[in-house]
């Protein structure tokens, strides 16, 4: 239990009941999407304080500044880097490498999407890749659906591979102290394997039927990817900073540097390099633009959720739930890990995986004593990461990236419908979770 003011709770309500009810109500409101999710989370956070469950000071302790800093820093870096045109260059180059063969393009876009999702974040990645995909499929007169479907999967699978790839991993890494390298060594191999396996059904269902006229293929081959690079100087600065940041993630832990510090350092350094040659007025414009690239809705959603979950945790409710989970799994670590993976996958395919993981983190931490210390929880953290990230593929609402791709599909006149998507995606998601559970079992429990 944390520093709370439960004696001052309003209307004499039990803190457990109040925070539990507020938590459930917040979840319902987030799922029904009648109100912006950041507004819901902020209101819930404020109610936790006003009701007396938390003080303002203790609420601030609940905000994971490492997650917020890492997300904000990376958003600024990616926002500036994208202006150079490097991401478009990569996408077009990848299409031309395979001579604009329709199936080859799909495979290459899947690889690029997964790679960028692992290095940046999957929402930014699909925002960059989906418009190019639509341009290419439009030129080749192909249905964009298989490509967009594959990119949704690639973004969520790629995001699973690293600490910074997907918000659940960022939260898990921050809460547990697991390093970038640990995520890479434990999750990247299985993410690559799942990506390759996923391509098989995609080929059987769509890939082998994808054909385009030679003159249309020529049109794609006429794209001059080098012209996509709009600012060579910015490209060099961005790649320099991105390399430093990646090195920082890999080596920084040994020097006591948290991922948020590294990402914010990268953002600050890139802003300095980007702004330095310009006058004060232009600099103000450039900084405004760079900060405008930050998805403040996501940031405030996180802040609100952290406070809400901290409030629930402070009442001891999550600890009680953790004991219930352990009762259900008979206190067996293997059963607990695999169950958490499947439950996370199911939940993440229906609701946003961010609030789910925010809730699961303190719940799993409460199990440390039962399993003999926090070191023993490590396989469970990998199970949570795999379940919550891969679960996002289960339905159209499973991850923010899915909804962004669906938005592009809608605007291009080739909408992705909820049910047809789920009929294909859910079994594929289950396959990926099944593979992950075998992997976790063999690697950590065998």
């Amino acid at each position, binding site marked *: 239990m944390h520093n709370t003011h439960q004696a001052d709770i309003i209307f004499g309500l039990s803190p457990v009941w109040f925070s539990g009810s507020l938590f459930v109500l917040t979840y319902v409101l987030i799922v029904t999407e009648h109100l912006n999710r950041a507004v819901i989370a902020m209101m819930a956070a404020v109610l936790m304080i006003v009701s007396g469950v938390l003080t303002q000071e203790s609420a601030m302790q609940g905000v994971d500044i490492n997650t917020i800093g890492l997300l904000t820093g990376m958003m600024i870096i990616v926002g500036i880097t994208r202006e150079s045109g490097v991401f478009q260059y990569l996408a077009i180059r990848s299409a031309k490498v395979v001579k604009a063969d329709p199936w080859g393009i799909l495979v290459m876009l899947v690889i690029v999407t997964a790679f960028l999702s692992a290095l940046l974040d999957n929402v930014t990645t699909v925002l960059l890749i989906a418009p*190019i995909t639509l341009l290419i499929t439009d*030129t080749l007169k192909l249905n964009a659906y298989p490509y967009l479907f594959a990119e949704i999967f690639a973004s969520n699978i790629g995001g699973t591979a690293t600490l910074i790839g997907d918000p659940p991993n960022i939260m898990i890494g921050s809460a547990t102290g697991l390093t970038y390298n640990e995520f890479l060594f434990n999750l990247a191999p299985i993410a690559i394997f799942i990506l390759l396996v996923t391509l098989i059904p995609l080929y059987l269902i769509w890939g082998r039927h994808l054909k385009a006229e030679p003159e249309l293929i020529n049109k794609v081959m006429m794209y001059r990817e080098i012209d996509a690079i709009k600012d060579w100087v910015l490209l060099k600065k961005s790649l320099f900073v991105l390399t430093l940041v990646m090195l920082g993630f890999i080596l920084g832990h040994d020097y006591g540097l948290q991922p948020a510090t590294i990402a914010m350092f990268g953002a600050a350094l890139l802003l300095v390099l980007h702004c330095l040659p310009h006058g004060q007025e232009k600099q103000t414009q450039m900084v405004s633009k760079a900060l405008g690239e930050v998805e403040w809705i996501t940031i405030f959603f996180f802040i609100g959720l952290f406070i809400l979950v901290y409030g629930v945790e402070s009442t001891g409710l999550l600890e009680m739930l953790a004991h219930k989970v352990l009762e259900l799994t008979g206190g067996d670590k293997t059963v607990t890990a695999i169950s958490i993976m499947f439950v996370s996958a199911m939940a993440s395919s229906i609701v946003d995986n961010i609030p789910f993981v925010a809730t699961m983190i303190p719940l799993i931490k409460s199990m440390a004593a039962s399993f003999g210390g926090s070191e023993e929880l490590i396989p469970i953290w990998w199970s949570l990461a795999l379940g919550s990230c891969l679960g996002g593929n289960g339905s159209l609402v499973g991850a923010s990236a899915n909804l962004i791709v669906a938005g592009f599909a809608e605007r291009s006149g080739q909408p992705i419908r909820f049910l047809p998507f789920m009929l294909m995606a859910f079994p594929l998601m289950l396959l990926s979770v099944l593979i992950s559970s075998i992997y976790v079992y063999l690697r950590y429990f065998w």
Partner: protein
Amino acid sequence: MKASDVMDPNPTTLKSTDTIECAAKYIMEKRYRNVPVVDENFCYLGMFGVNCLLKQVIPKSVLMHQGLHNVSFIHESIEDLYQRFDEVKHHPISMCMNNEIPPVRPGTPLTETLLQLYEMRSSIPVVEKDTCQLLGMISYWDVGEKILASGERQDA
């Protein structure tokens, strides 16, 4: 002075069922930038203009919300552009009418009318209050001619 004092009461109009091809030929021939679209009862529906035509020949992925903002790598010919136009030329103009130009009322004061003309960067329709009846159009030229004519009268 009011909007009705500077409007052209007999504007050229298009019907929402006219095809894009037909409308395109018309506005190209007459060099119109925007033409009001009305129904069979002369009810104002929106504007059709050169921007709609441009929109049809630029790749969709460029103009859509959050679309490609960097198109420097695309090198297309006039034939490529025509192919895109060819795919939509038989569609009715209602598919790309501009509804974002709010009409003014006949009694709207001149300065407010001019501000709207300036902000919209397009001729603006004058529509009867409480109905959708198109009464006239106000273009830069209508207003400009009246201002210059006033100056000439003062000089004389």
